[in-house]
C-alpha cells in the first residue's frame, strides 16, 4: 500500500497499463505539450512519444469517434476530456456509436474505449462547466459508467476499464483530485465493475451515494454519529451501469430507512433510479420513503454564495437522515 492522491492514482493506472500493453494510448486536448489541465498526464508525452500520447485539436466528437474506431481495430484508447462538460459535444459519438456498435454489428467487434475526465461543481465555473453526468450516460445500454470515490477505486477501476472490452465512461470528481488514500501497490490490482460496497457500517439509516457525494455522506455520517448518536450505513455504488444495489437492499433490510445523495439536479437524476429501485425491491422493509438529497434544480450560477446554495452540503444529508427517522 502507498498513500496516493486520487489524481496520482488515475495517472498511475494509465502509466502502468501503458507499460503493460502497447495497445493502450491516450488522447485529448493539451495532454501532451501542455501536460494536462489537471497535470494528470504530465511527463507522459516525453515518456511514450506522440504516437501514444496524442494532443488533439478541440474536437470532442473527433476525439471520441476516432478512439472508437481505434478500439474497433484492437487498440485500447483512453480519451481524456478536459472536463466531462465538453463531452456533450461528442454525445452522438458516445451514445449512438460507442454504446451501440457491438449490438448492431451482432457482436462482431469489441469497443474497448475509455472516456474519462473530471466533472462536478465547486470552483465557480458556472453553468456550462459544472455538471455531472451519471444519469446522462447511465441511461444508455452498451456503456459502462463508473464514478469512483477513493484513490484506490480510481486506480483499480480505471485499470478494469482499460483492460475491458466495452466503452467505459469514467467520471472523475475534480474536487477529489487532491484527496489522498491508501492504494495497493500490486500492478494487477483491479476493482471490478458492478460491485457496490458498504464503506461505513451503521444500523439506523442507509445512505447511498458515489464519488464526491459518498465522501460528503461519510462526513455527514461521522457528524451524525458524534452529535446525534445516529449511525448511518454508507453504501458506495462506485459503478452506475451496471448498477449493483444488492448491498443497499441488504442494508435497508437492516436500517429500514434510506437517503440517496447526488450532486446534480434532482429531476431525472441518478438518485431517482436508485430510490425507485430500492423502493421496488425492499418496499416492505421501508419505514419511511427514500429521501433524495440533490443539487438545486438550476443551471450552476457563478457567484460563490449562489454556487454554495446550489450544491449539496453535509447539513442537507444530516437533515434528510433525521427526516427519514422522523426526528426533524
Amino acid at each position, binding site marked *: 500500500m502507498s498513500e496516493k492522491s486520487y489524481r496520482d492514482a488515475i495517472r498511475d493506472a494509465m502509466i502502468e497499463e501503458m507499460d503493460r500493453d502497447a495497445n493502450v*494510448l491516450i488522447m485529448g486536448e493539451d495532454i501532451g505539450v501542455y501536460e494536462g489541465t489537471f497535470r494528470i498526464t504530465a511527463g507522459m508525452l516525453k515518456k511514450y512519444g*506522440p*504516437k501514444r500520447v496524442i494532443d*488533439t*485539436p478541440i*474536437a470532442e*466528437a*473527433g476525439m*471520441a*469517434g*476516432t*478512439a*472508437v*474506431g*481505434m*478500439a*474497433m*481495430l*484492437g*487498440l485500447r*484508447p483512453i480519451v481524456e476530456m478536459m472536463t466531462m462538460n465538453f463531452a456533450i459535444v461528442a454525445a*452522438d*459519438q458516445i451514445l*449512438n*456509436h460507442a454504446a451501440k*456498435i*457491438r*449490438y*448492431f*454489428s*451482432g*457482436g*462482431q*467487434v*469489441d469497443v474497448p474505449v475509455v472516456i474519462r475526465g473530471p466533472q462536478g461543481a465547486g470552483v465557480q465555473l458556472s453553468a456550462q462547466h459544472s455538471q455531472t453526468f451519471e444519469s446522462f450516460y447511465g441511461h444508455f*445500454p*452498451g456503456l*459502462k459508467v463508473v464514478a469512483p470515490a477513493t484513490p484506490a477505486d480510481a486506480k483499480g477501476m480505471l485499470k478494469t476499464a482499460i483492460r*475491458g*472490452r*466495452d466503452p467505459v465512461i469514467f467520471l472523475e470528481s475534480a474536487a477529489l483530485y487532491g484527496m489522498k488514500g491508501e492504494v495497493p501497490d500490486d500492478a494487477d490490482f483491479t476493482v471490478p465493475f458492478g460491485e457496490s460496497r458498504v464503506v461505513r457500517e451503521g444500523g439506523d439509516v442507509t445512505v447511498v451515494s458515489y464519488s464526491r457525494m459518498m465522501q460528503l455522506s461519510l462526513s455527514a455520517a461521522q457528524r451524525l454519529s458524534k452529535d446525534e448518536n445516529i449511525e448511518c450505513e454508507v453504501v458506495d455504488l462506485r459503478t452506475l451501469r451496471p448498477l449493483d444495489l444488492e448491498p443497499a437492499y441488504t442494508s435497508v433490510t437492516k436500517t429500514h430507512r434510506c437517503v440517496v445523495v447526488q450532486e446534480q439536479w434532482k429531476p431525472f437524476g441518478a438518485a431517482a433510479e436508485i430510490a425507485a429501485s430500492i423502493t421496488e425491491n425492499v418496499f416492505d422493509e421501508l419505514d419511511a420513503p427514500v429521501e433524495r438529497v440533490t443539487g438545486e434544480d438550476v443551471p450552476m450560477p457563478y457567484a460563490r454564495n449562489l454556487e454554495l446554495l446550489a450544491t449539496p452540503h453535509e447539513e442537507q444529508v444530516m437533515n434528510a437522515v433525521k427526516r427519514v427517522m422522523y426526528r426533524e
Partner: protein
Amino acid sequence: MAKQETESAAAVIDAVCAPDWTEILRQMILVRRFEEATEREFRRGKIGGYLHVYIGQEAVASGIISALRKGDILFTGYRDHAHALMLGSDPGRVMAELFGKSTGISKGKGGSMHLFDVEHGFYGGYGIVGGHLTLATGAAYALRYQGTDRITVCYFGDGAMNIGPFHEAMNMAGLWGHEGMAPIIFIIENNGYAMGTSVERHSALTDLAARVRAYDIPSEKVDGQDVFAVRGVAERVIRQVRENGTPYCIEAVTYRFSGHGAADILQPYRSKEEVEQHKHRDPIVILRNRLSELCGLKDDDVKRMEDAAAEEVARALKFAEESPQPEADELYRDVVAE
C-alpha cells in the same frame, strides 16, 4: 488533374481486358439485381425499417473496392449493401440481415443500415449521417500504429459533408497525415442530393473536392459512372496512401436512380426527365459497352452473368426466407462483452 486522369485512364485501358474487369461487371450486375430484389421485398413487407439502395452508383463502390487488398477495411453509411457484397460478403447472409433473420450478417440485429462483416474488412454500416467518419479515421490510425500497411476506405454522401463530425474527422486525418498516421481514402459519393436537397442547396461551396483542401487533404473528382476512371484513380491513390500513410479524398460524381429510400416515392425535388437523362449513363452499361468494344465481350457472356446474378439473388432470397428469426434471448446478447 485532367492530365493525370487521362494518363491513368490510358494505363487502365491497357489492362482493360484483364479478367478482373469481367469479375467487376459480374459484381455490378449482381449488386443491381440484389438491390432491385430488396426494393421488391421491401414492398412485400419482408424487409422493414429504412432501405437505401445503390442503384446507379455501383461503379463508385466497385472501382475502388476491386483495387483493395485483403486486410484493407471499409466504413460507410446506411447505403451499404453494395459495399458488403463487393467486399465478398455472402449475398444470402446479407439478404437474411435485411429480412431480420438469425443467419443475417449482423445476426438480424442491424438491418439494412448496419451491415457488418469484419472478416471481409467491412466495419459497417452506420445510420447517423457523417457519424462514421471519425471512426474510420481512428481505424486508419490504428492500422498504422500496429505497423501494418493496411488502409481504410471511408465512403459518405455529399450531404454528410455539412455535419460537424465530418469536419472534426477531416482535420484530424489531415493532422495525422502529417505524421504518416492516416492511411485513409475518403470517398464522397456525390449523387447530387442529400435526400431531397441538392448540393447547391446544402453546400455553400459546391465544388466538394475543393472543400477538403481546408484540411490539407489532397483531392480530385472522378466520373463515378465510369468504373474505368474510378479504378484508375483508385489504383494510384491507394498506392500513395498505403505508402505514405496520408489521407486522400476522391469525389465520385454519380447519381442515384432510385429514390433516397424506399419511402421516397414522389421525389418532388427532381424531375422524371432528370432521372431519365442520368440513366443514360448507367455504370453497368458503360462498362459492358466498353468490354464489348475492346475485349469482345459477347451478349451471351452478359446473359450468362445476368442469369447467374438472378440465380444468386434467388438463392439469397430463399436462404433469407427460410432462415429462422433470432432466438428471443438474442435480445440480451451483444449489449456488452461476455
